[in-house]
């Protein structure tokens, strides 16, 4: 709870949230890396009807058995407040940080994109690759695999451009995030 007694509205009913619009948020959830922890987090979202747009997870501190789960979710401010509180209720969850709300979060996603084609289309694909600063990590006479890192919408845009040029398959990591500045979390 971040509100202080000074900024509490006059009545609870001034805080209506019925017409609140959905917002997109990126949450960084630090958890004890114990068996089933991802199941707890995912189960919570499905049990309470919350959305998951993307999810990534990996161990980040082997000695302390800590993992970082990055979840992109969507909901009304009221629902987002509940999501944070419900996540913190899970015993192995150490902290939840709203990277979007903090305004200091940077986000990146990595994608592997396979494009097949010959002739002019192949040349055009390679040119777009250069513009986006993607790299080619595999090539055959009629296909490329591009590796591209960036904001999610940049990857969306790249895929859209590749579609008429022979887009075959896309594999994406989902969003990762971290805060700017010298401090952690």
């Amino acid at each position, binding site marked *: 709870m971040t509100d202080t007694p000074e900024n*509490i509205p006059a*009545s609870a009913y001034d805080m209506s949230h019925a017409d609140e619009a959905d917002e997109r948020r990126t949450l960084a959830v630090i*958890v004890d890396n114990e068996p089933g922890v991802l199941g*707890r987090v995912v189960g919570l979202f499905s049990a309470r009807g919350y959305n998951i747009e993307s999810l990534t997870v990996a161990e980040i501190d082997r000695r302390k058995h800590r993992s970082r789960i990055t979840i992109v979710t969507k909901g009304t401010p009221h629902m987002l407040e*509940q999501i944070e*509180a419900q996540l*913190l209720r899970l015993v192995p969850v150490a902290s939840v940080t709203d990277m979007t709300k903090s305004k200091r979060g940077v986000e990146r996603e990595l994608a592997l994109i396979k494009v097949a084609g010959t002739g002019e289309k192949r040349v055009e694909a390679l040119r777009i690759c250069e513009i986006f600063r993607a790299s080619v990590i595999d090539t055959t006479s009629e296909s490329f695999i591009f590796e591209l890192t960036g904001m999610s919408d940049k990857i969306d845009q790249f895929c859209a451009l590749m579609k008429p040029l022979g887009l075959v398959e896309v594999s994406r990591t989902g969003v990762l995030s971290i805060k700017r500045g010298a401090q952690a979390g």
Partner: protein
Amino acid sequence: MDTQTQPEAEIETRQMTGAQIVITALKEQGVDVMFGYPGGAVLPIYDALYSAPEIEHILVRHEQGAGHAAEGYARSTGKAGVALVTSGPGATNMVTPITDAMMDSIPLVVITGQVPSHLIGTDAFQECDTVGITRCCAKHNYLVTDVDDLAHTIHEAFLIATTGRPGPVVIDIPKDVQFATGTYVGKQGIHKPTYVPQTEPAPARIEAAIAMMKQARRPVFYIGGGVINSGPGASKALRALQAATGFPVTSTLMGLGAFPASHKDWLGMLGMHGSYEANNAMHDCDLMICVGARFDDRVTGRIDAFSPGSKKIHIDIDPSSINKVIRVDLPIIADCGKALEALLAAWTSNKTKALNLKDWQAQIAVWRAVNSFAYAASETEIKPQYAIERLYELTKHRETYISTEVGQHQMWAAQHYHFEEPNHWMTSGGLGTMGYGLPAAVGIQAAHREALVIDIAGEASVQMVMQEMSTAVQHELPIKVFILNNLWMGMVRQWQELLHGERYSHTYSESLPDFVKLAEAYGGKGIYCDDPTQLDAKIEEMIAYDGPVIFDCRVTKAENCLPMIPSGAAHNEMILSEITGDEIDDAGRKLV
């Protein structure tokens, strides 16, 4: 409630088998009674239990009974209830009590056997994914794969079950881990770094609350089960704070007993079947102080018409309860007892004079005069409300614990049986589990051998768990099962009358057992009564009998449980005396 890291004490280490570790850890945790049912995957633990006379094991007849008995034990003692069951069906039969304990915040430690580690995932005999199944209905759960983690896990489970917002914790132990030899560690120094419940209230919030309380003209305390879970100190603090402020008090179903029902400022229970004065006070108040309750839909009625003119203070240990259903003006995240003590200290040190609440008290007196729990008396039939009234009058001078099943009888018990002290009322509130009361009574009686323990039951609910009479007889637990028998699934029938044009689809029991003969068949005593003039004498006979009793109390068949806030209605739109069938609009009809 201390979850702080304790200094590394001299750690006791001993080598023993996993099964012995379980028993040693339970003893160290002070477990004197546990409830269970043996089976293949827990045989080693049962073998260790064979030579542990310090722990009394109550052998139930169905695992669900073990779970509810552990709940009854926990709620009547304030300690964690412990259940021990086998893998597969043993574990799945525990799912209902685990969910029940989760919804009502009851501390349980449930130990389940599991097939040997190397068979996990092979669809072995009596294998199920216990941690998967219980993940969403327990506060926490564990699958212990290394015997050296076992003692630590059990101690951590007790810590998590009993601190913060209490709840059920499941420990799944494969059979090979029970046989393996490992190191025992004591409970000293056990903590979980990611688990740090906030128990101390923020001083600024307490100050803000006091400021709001001083301004109030129509205040009300709305208390819940959290006050009872917080321990006897919280009820004491509540009573002292109420005495200092003079604010009237209402309570949820779960909070009954935290405040004495004989007090002049007691409004009775609130909510769907609560009193007229309690619900109107909630609707018209200008300051609501919610302590350890969670604005359940059975309490709020229509959300957008819920107490429209009030400021709301919400004291809860669980941050996710804040603003979940109802937006509040001032949240105080803390243990109820500590918050109430802080409020009391601040109120007293401010030398705040008691507020002038005369107008508010006069208004409440007008509502109280409606006498909303009144019913039409009968000289020929036993009215269910009358039966509870007589039961109360004839047992109130004793140390009496009441459990209930779920339905009309439960609401009548809440309305007409009155509680002075916490931990004497055990009922399934959140999950609404028919079949809770009889095994809960078994658990309560196991904890309080000398007390009078009564399960106020309905004839439908009680048949879901009737087999536990056998447990009561075997373990000489003289529970009294007081059945308000109206031949109907009364609450469902009432809803069919209200919502479905009296089309009573499958709510009448065409055949019922002869409960007197059934009691005798189990080795208990059966009593039958359908005559109001004989009711007192029969109740006395029940109390006097030193053993389990089933009392078949035949009551008015089609009595409705009133007053009632119909689904989709507001607190000030109660049905008081008669159901006409047009109370609920189309929107309300779709609610439950």
